[in-house]
């Protein structure tokens, strides 16, 4: 029930962001109806859970995102510098990263964060490891991945994040 409520509210907010017509009662009620319809459909599709509707714990992500943004910028500078060198030296490799958040949400966030920082792409994902392709060997530091995994776990509200 809580998920349905938070999903409906989030969708209503999204409607207001898109719509821009706040003076028409008809449109506002249509928006409310659409938000309820979206939640009802999610229920009907059996996907009404914490992954479809993570909006009530969105505040945790606001700690994670600025850190991720900074990491993305740093990685971008490294990759751009590599691409721009006239004589490129690449050291591509595949590494297995063993540290993983425990929830599915955390795992997905971790894999997406790896892909989002240029220079590393998560190629495959299992219950306890990610296979990562990196374009430079200095991007594959174990500590870096462990730090990121711990932060992802914390962002998804896990009680004792990975060490």
């Amino acid at each position, binding site marked *: 029930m809580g998920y349905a409520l938070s999903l409906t509210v989030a969708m209503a907010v999204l409607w207001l962001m898109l719509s821009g*017509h706040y003076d028409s009662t008809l449109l506002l009620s*249509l928006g409310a109806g*659409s938000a309820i319809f979206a939640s009802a459909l999610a229920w009907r599709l059996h*996907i009404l859970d914490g992954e479809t509707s993570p909006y009530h714990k969105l505040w945790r992500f606001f700690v994670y995102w600025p850190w991720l943004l900074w990491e993305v910028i740093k990685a971008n500078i490294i990759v751009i510098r590599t691409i721009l060198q006239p004589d490129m030296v690449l050291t591509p490799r595949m590494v297995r990263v063993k540290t993983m958040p425990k929830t599915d949400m955390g795992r*997905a966030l971790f894999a997406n964060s790896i892909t989002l920082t240029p220079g590393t792409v998560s190629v495959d994902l299992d219950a306890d490891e990610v296979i990562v392709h990196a374009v430079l060997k200095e991007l594959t530091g174990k500590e870096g991945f462990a730090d990121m995994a711990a932060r992802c776990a914390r962002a998804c509200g896990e009680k004792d994040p990975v060490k």
Partner: protein
Amino acid sequence: MSTGFLTPIDAFTVIDLIFMSMLVVVGIAIVRLKDLFAVVMLSGVYSLVSAAWFVSLDAVDVAFTEAAVGAGISTVLMLGAMLLTARQAAPSKPARHWVALIVVCATGAALLYATVDMPSFGDPLSAPNAYIGLEYLKRTGAETGVPNVVSAVLASYRGYDTFGETTVILTAGLGVILILGLGGPAIKRKKPAAKTKAAKADQSKILGAHHVVLRVVSKMMIPVIIIYGAYVQFHGDFGPGGGFQAGLIIASAIILYALIYGIDAAKEAVPPSLVRLGAALGVLIYGGVGVINLLLGGNFLEYNILNPTHPAHGQELGIMFVEIGVLVTVASVMLIIFYGFTSRQPDIKDKDW
């Protein structure tokens, strides 16, 4: 284009020319490539380029439709169709048909000659710009109360045409049902298809973390896509959008669900019987609005009669209901096509893969 080459080239012409040459390159590549998969990829790019080009031509509504079709559905349906056929185009025999060449060249020359008489781009004196277009622009505001002229023309002035188009879409759906069937409600197969080694390995741990990234992201996106579809549906009066586009978007959300959770789960939630009903129901809603107008003493699809004191409000109301009919039909038919294409077990031998 009679004097097109002589007019000074401005910034937008440069953009148009770049897009047009991209379209030509992609078109030639599509014709020349034998690998059908590459052709599907190229047609995706064709759709992206033409959407961007339509925007630069100020045809935002057309661009929106192109985007709604090209962004997800067309690629999915083309892949589905490819699974029912082969991956390579049949090699054509290198033969020279001189007669055909002459016919093609003559037609091309005639078409080129005909362009000389066409009004140049944006000519204010050309027929569509001078008479009927101006009339629409002048009258829609007062008569329909709908700011987006394209929506007003589509649903009100040309209401009959749109009714016909909706029926055409229904007919397309019926054709797919007749040829491919709908596969019935959530067919119980003995064993889900596991053709490749990877598929077999995956099926044992399907609840594992394998596709967790795709699952989590898709789950988050499905309600968002639905809300966006609803926004497009109900704001067609103000900006680009309307029943056609919204129907495509909402069908895409269900297709995304079917891609992640399998077609059987999708058929359980949105059963084929419901989809079949919806396809006809949409046309019924559209026609029903017309019949109500008749019963109230007006003409077929003359929405003014819905609100005798405020004819413009009647128009607005009529357009809204008609667009809902279009939405229901389009979304249902898209799902009919998707179910029809994917419910058949493809029969590809390993050597053809």
